[in-house]
């Protein structure tokens, strides 16, 4: 039936094997996109006519910010699936997401601050976009703190899943903050319904970076997921073959 693939994904041995097989594909295509994107962003793209070379921070800032939101959404959706259908590997996916998301939220905040200093004259402002992104960082930290404070895995899964699901309201707030309120932060120039407002030599490296970071997230998640599954399965017999060196 159409649903069998979904049920198979819920099986730890199947998912472990799938993750192990897929990881190199995602990792190498991510590396390729990120190398090409960085090269294009630093060498091929022209300096911005208003911001000069400072605008090149966009090639690390925007994809990191995109990661911060995409990873959180992935985490919240898997946490919700885990809560509703009681699928254990779903909680494992959510738990594997958090450190990746937190680290790239930090990158988005710091690179944004470095960019903002010359453009706005300040490293930090309690601006809607900046503040909501900082809240996202604390949501990740809260999620990880809550997990590590509960010894029982099942209880940790459920409690942290509730936090992840409630916190997801912040995601659209971050995304729309620059259009809903007066913000220092510029409006989106790529993630918009109309055509992007950038020449191709600037845009293509940026799109490569978005793609590369997304693929990198998939690779990192698959590696962490394998570790999560092994820890959660304790002494399941299928693991004998999987961990045989």
């Amino acid at each position: 039936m159409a649903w069998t693939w979904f049920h198979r994904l819920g099986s730890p041995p199947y998912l472990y094997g799938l993750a192990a097989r897929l990881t190199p594909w995602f990792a190498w295509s991510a590396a390729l996109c990120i190398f090409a994107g960085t090269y294009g962003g630093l060498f091929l793209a022209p300096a911005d006519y208003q911001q000069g070379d400072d605008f090149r921070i966009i090639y690390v800032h925007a994809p990191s910010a995109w990661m911060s939101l995409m990873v959180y959404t992935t985490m919240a959706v898997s946490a919700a699936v885990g809560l509703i259908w009681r699928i254990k590997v779903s909680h494992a996916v959510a738990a594997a997401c958090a450190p990746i998301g937190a680290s790239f939220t930090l990158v988005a905040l710091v690179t944004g601050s470095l960019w903002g200093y010359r453009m706005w004259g300040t490293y930090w402002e309690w601006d809607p976009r900046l503040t909501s992104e900082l809240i996202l960082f604390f949501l990740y930290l809260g999620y990880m703190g809550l997990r590590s404070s509960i010894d029982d895995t099942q209880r940790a899964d459920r409690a942290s899943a509730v936090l992840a699901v409630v916190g997801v309201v912040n995601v659209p707030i971050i995304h729309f903050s620059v259009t809903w309120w007066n913000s220092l932060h510029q409006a989106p120039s790529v993630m918009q319904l109309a055509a992007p407002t950038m020449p191709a030599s600037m845009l293509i490296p940026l799109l490569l970076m978005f793609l590369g970071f997304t693929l990198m997230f998939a690779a990192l998640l698959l590696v962490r997921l394998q570790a999560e599954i092994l820890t959660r399965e304790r002494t399941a017999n299928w693991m004998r073959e999987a961990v045989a060196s």
Partner: protein
Amino acid sequence: MSEFLHMGGYAAYVWPAYGLTLAVIVWNIVYARRLLSRSREEARRRLAMRGEEA
């Protein structure tokens, strides 16, 4: 080359931004791999202990 490193006067902002991003990517890769190899070792140890009991 020095003109490139100079980044039109924005070197002090552009390069730290790229440096931090690279550092976080490397940390993510190293940490995830270490996590997996450690959990494989621990699983192997648990399985060996259970094997002896049985």
